[in-house]
């Protein structure tokens, strides 16, 4: 559809105000030698806000097998600690992890200092020994009071409960993710983050001693069994804290309850057993305290002086097994009841 337009003359006098129109017409000479003016009308006005038509693009790629899906869950949780785009761990949690990691390296630093200044007294207090290895993982204050249980509480808080709260469980279970893979990868993620702090700092401590004190093979062969026993104790500690924590997370829809409940269980039972032990001289209540059972088993396998002497360490081991079994039972039951269509 075209319609002729009569060109309008434009005058360029000194008093002509400088407007956009005049400037534009002057620049393009829009009225000179262009008499055959035509206008065109757009055929159909576009609806507001729609600047393009959506185009469905097909994808012909191959989906990877089960291990890749599991790796995606693990990667999502682990990388979330370090960078954006993965599971959004809160800034306070990330900061606390960093603080605890640095604080866990105290004995590493003091081992290096004692080697640097050649002070054997300082080294005897902080260097690698049976008691210090035990203390690095299972010492109560500050590590099992302020560091590791708090980390576990912060980590497990939202790992499963937030899937219930936000309904993100549907995103997992409407895909070829089994409940076992889901809970397994979540467990592994939380355990690995704790392991990054506890086991890495423990290894650094051991290797700092070797490097700074110039320890030879004989010393390494001598101390390796107790180092490995400490690693095993640390794994037991991480496993126990994670299983109890995740079972609490699986029965909740928020992150506060699982976190605070885990701390209450670990610290509350410890305090209760301590009070009973002091008032009545009965240590049996330590069997309901996850920390005390871990410490007792740890003392036995690392070979330090036992502080729980009214009963055998195998009772503590049995208690630990029972606690973990109960926690895993609750965890699996609750996860298997998670819905896809409605939560």
């Amino acid at each position, binding site marked *: 559809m075209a319609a002729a337009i009569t060109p309008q003359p434009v005058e360029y006098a000194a008093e002509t105000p400088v407007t956009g129109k005049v400037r534009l017409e002057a620049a393009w000479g829009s009225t000179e030698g262009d008499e055959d003016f035509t206008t065109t009308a757009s055929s159909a006005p576009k609806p507001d806000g729609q600047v393009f038509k*959506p185009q*469905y693009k097909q994808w012909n*790629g191959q989906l990877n097998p089960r291990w890749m899906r599991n790796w995606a*869950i693990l990667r999502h949780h682990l990388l979330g600690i370090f960078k954006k785009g993965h599971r959004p761990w809160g800034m306070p949690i990330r900061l606390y992890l960093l603080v605890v990691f640095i604080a866990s390296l105290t004995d590493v630093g003091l081992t290096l200092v004692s080697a640097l200044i050649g002070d054997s007294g300082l080294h005897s207090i902080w260097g690698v020994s049976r008691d210090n290895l035990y203390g690095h993982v299972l010492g109560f204050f500050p590590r099992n009071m302020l560091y590791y249980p708090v980390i576990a509480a912060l980590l497990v808080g939202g790992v499963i409960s937030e899937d219930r709260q936000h309904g993100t469980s549907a995103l997992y279970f409407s*895909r070829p993710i089994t409940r076992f893979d889901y809970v397994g990868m979540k467990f592994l993620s939380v355990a690995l983050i704790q392991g990054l702090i506890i086991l890495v700092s423990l290894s650094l401590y051991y290797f700092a001693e070797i490097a700074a004190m110039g320890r030879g093979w004989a010393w390494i062969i001598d101390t390796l069994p107790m180092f490995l026993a400490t690693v095993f104790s640390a794994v037991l500690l991480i496993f126990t804290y994670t299983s109890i924590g995740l079972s609490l997370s699986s029965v909740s829809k928020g992150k506060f309850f699982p976190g605070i409940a885990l701390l209450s269980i670990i610290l509350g039972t410890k305090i209760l057993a301590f009070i009973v032990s002091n008032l009545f001289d009965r240590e049996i209540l330590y069997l309901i305290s996850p920390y005390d059972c871990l410490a007792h088993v740890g003392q036995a396998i690392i070979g330090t002086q036992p502080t729980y002497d009214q009963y055998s360490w195998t009772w503590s081991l049995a208690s630990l097994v029972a606690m973990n079994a109960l926690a895993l039972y609750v965890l699996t039951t609750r996860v298997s009841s998670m819905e896809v269509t409605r939560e």
Partner: protein
Amino acid sequence: MQDDLIIKTTNLTKSYGPHVALNKLNLSVPKGATGLLGPNGAGKSTFLKTILGLIQTTEGEGTVLGLNIRTQGDEIRSRIGYMPEYDCLNPDMEAIHQVRYSGELLGMNPTIALARAHETLQYVGLGEQRYRNIGSYSTGMKQATKLACALIHDPELIIADEPSNGLDISARNYMIETLTHTVKTGNRSVLMASHLMDDVERVCENFILLHKGKLAAQGRIEDLKAFDREIEIHVWGGASRLEEAMIARGMGVRREGRVMRILHEQEDTTSMILQCAADVGAQIRRMHEYEASLEDLFLSIMENLGYEVKTSEDLLSSPAQARKVDAPGYMGGGSA
């Protein structure tokens, strides 16, 4: 014909103790878009869980995309995209990463999943908003993100559970257009569960109506609508006389005040109506072919089954209350 079926069930039964959620369901869902209808408690969610391969059936067989729902649940879930009715997004994540992660959960390589997340978010209309946190999204944007999560691996079948739930008119239109586009130009199949009949009618060619775990009706929406064609007339003066005259001539008449709908059964129904009007001296101010909407048919079917059902308008104005579909008293509901 068999190859064109995306879902087929034979005597599919699912019981929870004494409660039978699905009762000997025999369904054949062809390619294209199909609406899954039914009041609350009809068994829609159980049916969706069953075809996702998430729950074991008590009895009967079923296939989705040719895969057995009893033994090939993982494969089925790899080849379909499920868009849940309820929130399934992490509000602290950016949409692009949420969609990418949903692709990774299917086994997509992270780099490919990211590229595909950009494409699908662009497709659902969130191209410019994809780096915003989902927590800051409107309901419509969240629904679009859920659709993007379902589409990321280009599934053969998309199961959309109440896709337009809680959306305003423009967001609802966009969602419906996107789904329609996915079916028509993307050549994908959609199984859409919805309480909003208008939406089902706009997207789907076929429908399934469930009632108390049983199949109440199934077929092409067009066929169903063509089943009871009526002529609607607006009468001025002598409406009662006209109604009587038409009934006397054996015509099927439904009347509401001055508006009457007459069953269009014969070629000469129109002239018979005019003849009756002339005989009784009634004025017909308006006459047109009345095509029942899917909602009318749904209401009619459900009323025949003894249910009191709300309309789309009610559903849109007060979703929480109106989505309650009351069973009559003798069926265990609150209303008569």
